[in-house]
């Protein structure tokens, strides 16, 4: 597997997922410079509201903003972060994003844990390595990592960790835990 020439630039991709308002943008901003990346939703690909359009040449799109961050490990080795919009109707973007991704961070808020179910399902089905980062909002009742693991019915090897996405040290810990998990997954797969 050690096939990279040392001067081949390598770009790795990590996804940040989770429900609306759970802390995706905050996490990306805590660990990297954050830039808004615009991508577009083509209405005629969605199947709702298409009746109003009288032909593909009139394809209308709406722009969706995605969080985008970049961590330069060294020259020629860069990790890109993509924060996906939380709603399921943006899954058309996830398919592309998860293609070739090193892994994903699913952020969870224990006050509305169900919001992260779709993300967990998605990455489990795709076989994308992921960790669950429980964002401990101030005053939120703190559930144990074990409670979260059981509630999400996670495999034993999926790391679950408590974090405060506003803190850089905490955000770093989440990212390290994900890459370690991806490494274990790759090694196990041979």
């Amino acid at each position: 597997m050690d096939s990279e020439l040392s001067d081949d630039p390598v770009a790795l991709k990590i996804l940040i997922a989770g429900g609306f308002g759970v802390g995706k943008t905050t996490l990306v901003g805590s660990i990297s410079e954050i830039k808004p990346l615009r991508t577009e939703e083509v209405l005629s690909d969605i199947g709702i509201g298409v009746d109003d359009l009288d032909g593909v040449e009139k394809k209308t799109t709406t722009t969706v903003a995605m969080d985008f961050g970049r961590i330069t490990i060294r020259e020629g080795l860069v990790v890109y972060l993509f924060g996906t919009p939380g709603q399921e109707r943006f899954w058309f973007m996830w398919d592309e994003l998860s293609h070739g991704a090193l892994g994903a961070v699913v952020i969870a808020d224990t006050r509305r844990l169900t919001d992260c179910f779709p993300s967990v399902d998605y990455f489990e089905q795709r076989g994308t390595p992921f960790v669950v980062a429980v964002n401990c909002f101030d005053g939120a009742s703190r559930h144990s990592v074990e409670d979260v693991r059981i509630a999400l019915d996670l495999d034993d090897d999926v790391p679950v960790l408590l974090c405060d996405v506003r803190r850089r040290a905490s955000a770093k810990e989440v990212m390290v835990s994900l890459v370690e998990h991806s490494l274990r997954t790759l090694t196990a797969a041979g």
Partner: protein
Amino acid sequence: MTMWMDDEAGPLVRPYALTRGRTRSASGETLDLIAMVSAVGDPPGGLGPEQLAILRAARSPISVADVAVELDLPVGVVRVLLSDLHDHGLISVTAPNAAGPRPSERLLKEVINGLRAL
């Protein structure tokens, strides 16, 4: 159509006017968001301001996503423009997995150490 406007989606726009309505390039290639592009040679005459801006941004290797951010254009539009430039031999493209299908153990350890040192 107002139902399409919400917190995470902006107003309806027609950014594809720049690509003359095309959502795909002639070659049909779809560039990965983290593919690296770099300008090759000197730009010929007759290019539009967006194409020229892309070639300027790509004077040293830059990811497709970063080009979209720099030009403040949606990714899909930038992809079509980039593919056109690629078809005309004006940029080179390096796929993210050019080094192999999966990152090596050594590389991931380097990433882990690099993240810890941030």
